C-alpha cells in the first residue's frame, strides 16, 4: 500500500478527496495510504522509484507481496510540472488564466509586475486578444528588458495579438535589451 500512496501522490499530489466510509474497507485502506503521504508530487515521484529499488534490492521483500495493487493510469507519459501553482491573486495571474470576469473587475489598472510588465504585455504574451481589447493603456510601454506588448505578442507567436496592436498604432521600432525591434521578430 505504500506504493499506492506514493503513486497517487506522485500523479495527483496530496490527498484531495474525502475519506471513504468506515465499511468501504478497500477504498478506506487506499485512501489512508494516500492521505498519510506528506510529500509534494515531485518528492513522491522520487520516493516511488526509491521504494521500488529498495524492494528490488531485497531489503523489503514482504512489502511487494502486499503491494498487489495493480497500478493503473499512467501509460502515455506527459510532463510533470516542476513548480506548484499558487491560487491566482493578481491581475497578471487572472490574465494568464484567461479569467475575463476577474480581469474586468480589476481594470483599469496602471500597475506593473516585478519585471515591469503591464497587463497589456501579459495579455499579448498569453494570446488573450479579448482581454487586450478591454485594456486602454500606453501601447508602447516597455518592461525592464525593454520589451513592449508588441515584442511579447511576436516572441510568443501570437499573430492576431500583434496585428491588433499594430492596427491600434503600436510602434514597431522600439529596441529591447537584446537589441531587437518588434519588427525584427516577425
Amino acid at each position: 500500500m505504500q506504493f499506492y500512496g506514493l503513486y497517487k501522490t506522485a500523479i495527483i499530489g496530496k490527498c484531495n478527496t474525502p475519506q471513504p466510509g468506515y465499511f468501504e474497507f478497500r477504498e478506506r485502506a487506499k485512501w489512508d495510504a494516500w492521505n498519510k503521504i506528506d510529500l509534494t508530487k515531485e518528492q513522491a515521484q522520487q520516493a516511488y522509484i526509491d521504494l521500488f529499488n529498495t524492494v528490488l534490492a531485497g531489503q523489503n521483500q514482504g512489502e511487494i507481496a502486499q503491494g498487489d495493487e495493480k497500478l493503473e493510469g499512467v501509460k502515455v507519459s506527459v510532463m510533470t510540472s516542476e513548480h506548484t501553482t499558487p491560487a491566482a491573486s493578481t491581475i497578471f495571474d487572472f490574465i494568464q488564466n484567461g479569467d475575463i470576469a476577474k480581469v474586468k473587475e480589476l481594470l483599469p489598472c496602471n500597475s506593473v509586475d516585478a519585471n515591469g510588465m503591464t497587463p497589456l504585455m501579459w495579455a499579448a504574451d498569453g494570446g488573450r486578444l479579448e482581454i487586450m481589447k478591454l485594456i486602454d493603456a500606453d501601447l508602447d510601454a516597455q518592461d525592464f528588458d525593454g520589451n513592449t506588448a508588441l515584442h511579447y505578442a511576436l516572441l510568443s507567436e501570437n499573430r492576431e495579438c500583434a496585428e491588433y496592436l499594430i492596427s491600434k498604432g503600436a510602434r514597431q521600432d522600439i529596441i529591447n535589451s537584446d537589441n531587437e525591434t518588434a519588427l525584427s521578430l516577425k
Partner: protein
Amino acid sequence: MQSKEKKEKEAHKFWNTQPVPQNESDVQEDGVIEHKEVSDIKQEPYKLPSDFEWYLVDINNEKDRTDVYTLLSQNYVEDSDAVFRFDYSPEFLQWALQPPGWKQDWHLGVRVASNKKIVAFISGIPANLSVHESKLHLVEINFLCVHKKLRSKRLAPVLIKEITRRVNLTGIFQAVYTAGVNLPTPISICRYFHRPLNPKKLCEVGFSQLPHNTTMASHIKKYKLDVSFLNLQPMQEGDVSQVTALLNEFLSQFEFHQVFSEEEVRHMMLPIKDVVFSYVAKDENDNVTDFTAFYSLPSSIARNPKHTHIHAAYLFYYAPKGLGKDQTRSRHLMNDTLILAKQANFDVVNCLGLSHNQQFLDELKFGKGDGYLHYYLYNYRCKTIQPEQMGLVML
C-alpha cells in the same frame, strides 16, 4: 469499483499461472523458470469465446494493415486522463513488425466471426538480448490491444497464451515485454523524460504547463536550439556495417542490452520517411564516429479545438564517439539529435532514463514525465537491473 477490483484480481490470477517471478524473493539468480521442449507444446490453438476467431494479419496487405492501425489508434495506450493516445502509423507498423526473422504466425489477430472485424491483436518479433552476460534468443511481445468494448471478455490472457504457444512451437521459450503498469515482476522501471521542441503547442494541448509567473515568450526562448556541433548526415546503406559494430560496442557496456546483426541494423536503423530517422557523423577517413536514431510516434489528442496530434520523436538507439566516456561528446550528439528532430517538425523528443541518458537529460532541458515503463521477461528469472544498466529500447 466492483468491476475494477475484479479485473485486478483476475489479472493477478492470470500472472500467477505464468512462468514469471511472482515477487522479488523468487529471483535469487538468473535462469530459465520452466524447461520445455517443442514436443511438450500442444498443436491446437487455444479456444476463443464463441463468435470470435483467430486471424493471422498480413501486414503487407493494405486492408489488414489499415484494420490493425484502426484498432490500435482507437483502443491502444492512453494517458491517465484519456486525452492522448498512441497513434502508430500504418507504415510504422509495417516496419516494426517485419525485422529479419519475422513470422506472420506471430502477427496474431482476433476477428468477430460474423463480420470479420479485427477486435484484438498481439505481436511478436525475434530479437537477441544479452542479460548479465547470458545470450537469449527470444521474442519481443508488443502491440497487445483489445477493443474497448470487449475488455470484459478476458481476451488478453488468451492472446498471451496463444502467442506463447506459437512462439514455443519454433523452439523459443523466452520473451521480453514492457508495460506502463506494474505486473509480476519488473526487472527494471525506467522513467519517461520529455524535451519540448514546440513548447507553446505542448502547453496548449495540456501536455505540459507554463510555470506560474512565466511568460510564454521566455518559455519559448528557454527551449530554443541554435548551435550544432557535429556534421550529422542521414545514415545510408554503406554505413550499416560500421553502425552495427559501433552500436553493439556501445550497448555491450550495459547489463541488459539488445545485440544486433547487420541485417537487423539495416532493417531497423536505415531511415524511412516519417517512420525512423537516423544519422551518422564521420571522420576525415569516412569512418562512422557517432550514430543516432529516433522514431516517429504521434499521439492523438482528444477534445482539442486547435490540435489533433502531438508529433513526438522517441529517442531510439544511439552511440557516441567515446562510447559515453566523453560526456561532452554524448551531449553534443544529443543536442544535434534534438535539432534534427526540430527540423523534422516534431513537437517533443521523448526518451527513457536508461543507459547513459542521465548524461544529457538535465543539460539539454529534458523534463520528467509522469510515466514509467516497466520491463519484464517471460520464463526467465533476472536480477534487478538499474535503469542506467538498461540497453534495450522497444518500439
